């Protein structure tokens, strides 16, 4: 009797020690559900060959405590493609649930409410949908991180979260939540990070959020569409380091109270409808590194008092209605890397000291009314990548130092009043991909030493550049666009130019170029557009031009080209625009192929050219070098005579 009693006790003990599902069974159920029909992964989550109580603890991504309960599940960036089953609720000891970027779908099961030990719940970068079941968090009193960023959750923002006393990181961004931001979110006093960006939220931004004294980072913008503006109360968020309310239809003025955010490092308010001035009180933001107020309706000037903010690394003010000078202190900022203030009404000159901090990477001041010379030291640190000055009234010469700036990627200074010679070093820059110097008063000649694998766009048109076109241009192996038009280039077109395998647009019009069109033009088969018009080119049109299978636009008008129009041009199906007017061409315009599509204007101004699409032109055989100025008609009559005489011959 005692033996059977003991047996019963042991049996009972064993029975109660096991739950309805073992940890192993739960994990295997998770696997089958999360690796959906098309998914893969979790290959090592298998029933062990020999029964072992700890086998599941060796599964990848699984961590157990000393009692073999699963405390951490971290399975991320695998293409699981399945869904989370209700059985997840059985992992009662789970502290960390991180399933990021696994392409998971479906809803979050309400059984997750049982996971009351959770500190970290991160299901970001998946495709979960439906409303977020906020009630599951009611028991998660230890929760510190709730991250559901980048999913397809919809409906209202969950209110149940306000009861969480330990929540530090809340990221609900990148979903389709709608409705207002709950005022009660101000109760989550422990919050250090709040992300609501990239949703469909509306209504006013609640001023009550200003009570979140521990908040370091708040992100509310992008795709949301709020009423009104930034609550002035936000000035009391004393711990705030990062404030992002960009691109969400904010209106009204910038509250001067934002100047109280002593710890603020990054302020993003771009692409809104903010108006009024930049408050000078913002100069109290002595830790501010990044200021982006671009694409708004701001007026007034850059406050002088901003000179106190030595920590600036990036200043974006582009596309506003700002006026006044660029203050001198901007040139003295010790850490400034990016200055983008284009599309405003700034006047006066660039600060002379700009670039002396040796850290400047991007300078974009285009579309303003700036004047004066270019500061010498813009590239002093050898880090300048983008120099964009176009559409201003800058004058003077380009500093020679600019020719030494090997870090340059983009040089766009067109439509200004620069003069002098272009520094030779610009033509051998290893990283420069865009060189746009057109529409200025540059003079002198292009250097004979030219080489780069990076340069794709070279435009020096509409200047006063003379000399020969350097053959070394052929060293620009990746050049796609070459614009030399409206200058004073003379001499011949170097045949080497047509060795450029990627050259697509070539414009040398309105220069003093002489000599013939090189026959090597036929090798340049990426060409889509050629303009050699308004020069003094002579000789014939090379028939090889017809080999250019991508050529859509050919303009060689206003030259001294002679000889006949190569008939091969008629079979260039790609050619949709042709201008050979005002030359000295002879023979006839073939009445076939592409020629049938072009207007008179394509051929006019060639006195010895007969347009056989309109009149009957004598056969090519009858033309000789002694074509007179009588044009077509004389030949027409003599052809008629010949025909009559042949006919008579056949009768006789």
């Amino acid at each position: 009797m005692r033996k059977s009693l003991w047996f019963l006790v042991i049996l009972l003990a064993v029975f109660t020690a096991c739950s309805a599902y073992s940890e192993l069974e739960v994990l295997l159920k998770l696997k089958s559900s999360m690796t959906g029909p098309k998914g893969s992964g979790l290959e090592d989550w298998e029933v062990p060959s020999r029964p072992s109580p700890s086998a599941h603890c060796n599964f990848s991504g699984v961590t157990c405590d000393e009692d073999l309960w699963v405390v951490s599940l971290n399975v991320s960036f695998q293409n699981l493609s399945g869904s989370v089953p209700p059985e997840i609720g059985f992992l009662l000891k789970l502290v960390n649930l991180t399933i990021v970027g696994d392409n998971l779908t479906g809803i979050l099961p309400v059984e997750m409410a049982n996971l009351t030990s959770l500190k970290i719940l991160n299901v970001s970068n998946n495709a979960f949908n439906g409303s977020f079941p906020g009630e599951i968090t009611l028991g998660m009193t230890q929760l510190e991180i709730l991250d559901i960023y980048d999913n397809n959750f919809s409906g209202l923002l969950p209110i149940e979260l306000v009861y969480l006393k330990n929540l530090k990181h809340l990221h609900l961004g990148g979903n389709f939540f709608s409705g207002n931001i709950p005022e009660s979110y101000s109760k989550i006093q422990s919050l250090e990070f709040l992300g609501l960006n990239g949703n469909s939220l509306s209504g006013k931004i609640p001023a009550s959020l200003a009570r979140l004294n521990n908040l370091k980072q708040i992100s509310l913008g992008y795709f949301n569409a709020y009423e009104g503006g930034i609550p002035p109360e936000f000035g009391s968020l004393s711990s705030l380091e990062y404030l992002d309310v960009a691109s969400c239809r904010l209106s009204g003025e910038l509250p001067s109270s934002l100047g109280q955010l002593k710890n603020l490092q990054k302020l993003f308010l771009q692409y809104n409808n903010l108006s009024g001035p930049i408050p000078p009180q913002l100069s109290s933001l002595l830790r501010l590194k990044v200021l982006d107020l671009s694409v708004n309706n701001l007026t007034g000037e850059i406050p002088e008092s901003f000179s106190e903010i030595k920590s600036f690394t990036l200043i974006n003010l582009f596309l506003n209605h700002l006026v006044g000078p660029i203050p001198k202190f901007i040139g003295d900022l010790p850490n400034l890397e990016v200055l983008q203030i284009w599309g405003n009404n700034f006047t006066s000159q660039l600060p002379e000291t700009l670039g002396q901090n040796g850290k400047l990477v991007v300078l974009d001041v285009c579309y303003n009314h700036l004047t004066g010379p270019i500061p010498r030291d813009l590239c002093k640190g050898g880090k300048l990548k983008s120099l964009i000055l176009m559409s201003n009234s800058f004058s003077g010469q380009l500093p020679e130092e600019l020719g030494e700036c090997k870090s340059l990627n983009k040089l766009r200074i067109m439509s200004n009043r620069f003069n002098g010679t272009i520094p030779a070093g610009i033509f051998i820059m290893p990283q420069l991909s865009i060189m746009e110097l057109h529409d200025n008063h540059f003079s002198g000649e292009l250097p004979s030493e030219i080489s780069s694998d990076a340069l794709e766009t070279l435009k020096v048109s509409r200047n006063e550049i003379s000399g020969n076109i350097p053959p070394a241009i052929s060293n620009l192996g990746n050049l796609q666009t070459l614009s030399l038009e409206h200058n004073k280039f003379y001499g011949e077109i170097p045949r080497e130019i047509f060795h450029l395998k990627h050259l697509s647009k070539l414009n040398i019009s309105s220069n003093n170029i002489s000599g013939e069109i090189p026959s090597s033009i036929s090798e340049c088969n990426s060409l889509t557009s050629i303009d050699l018009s308004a020069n003094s080119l002579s000789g014939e049109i090379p028939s090889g031009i017809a080999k250019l299978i991508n050529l859509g636009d050919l303009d060689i008008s206003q030259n001294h080209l002679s000889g006949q129009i190569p008939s091969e041009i008629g079979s260039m199906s790609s050619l949709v625009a042709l201008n050979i007017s005002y030359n000295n061409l002879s023979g006839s315009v073939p009445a076939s192929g592409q020629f049938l599509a072009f207007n008179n204007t394509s051929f006019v101004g060639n006195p010895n050219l007969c347009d056989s699409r309109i009149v009957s032109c004598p056969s090519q055989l009858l033309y000789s070098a002694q074509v007179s100025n009588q044009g077509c008609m004389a030949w027409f009559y003599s052809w008629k005579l010949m025909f009559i005489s042949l006919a008579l011959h056949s009768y006789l």
Partner: protein
Amino acid sequence: MAAQTWLWTSLTVAVTVILTVVNGNSEGDALFTLRKSLKDPDNVLQSWDPTLVNPCTWFHITCNQDNRVTRVDLGNSNLSGHLVPELGKLQHLQYLELYKNNIQGPIPSELGNLKSLISLDLYNNNISGTIPPSLGKLKSLVFLRLNDNRLTGPIPRDLANVSSLKVV
């Protein structure tokens, strides 16, 4: 995955992304929609950067003085995928050169909105469906070449109203 992801992951970097800034960029958006819809193994569309203010620095694009797109030159570019209705937004487009590729799908009827169009070259592709009658609205059209595709159905009568047509 939420549609917003690609856009503001670049938020974290200090340089901002412009969405639709000046009206010129709706042309850039339209062309970028085309880019997303095409397969481009030779990377000819590599320069088509939608974060730029307008598409005028993009290769294979030509703009006029007002930064409006006048030419798209993508013949012989090894492209596949399909055309997009957004192409119809390019109100100043004169030359649409997409010949000798492997583009499939239909001709969007929105191409009939390209009121400045002089040349529509879609020949030598894999384009299917019928020729939209809306092409009859293209009053400046000189070149209309749709040969060597898989088009079916009748040639719309409306095309007879395009008196400028010279090459079909």
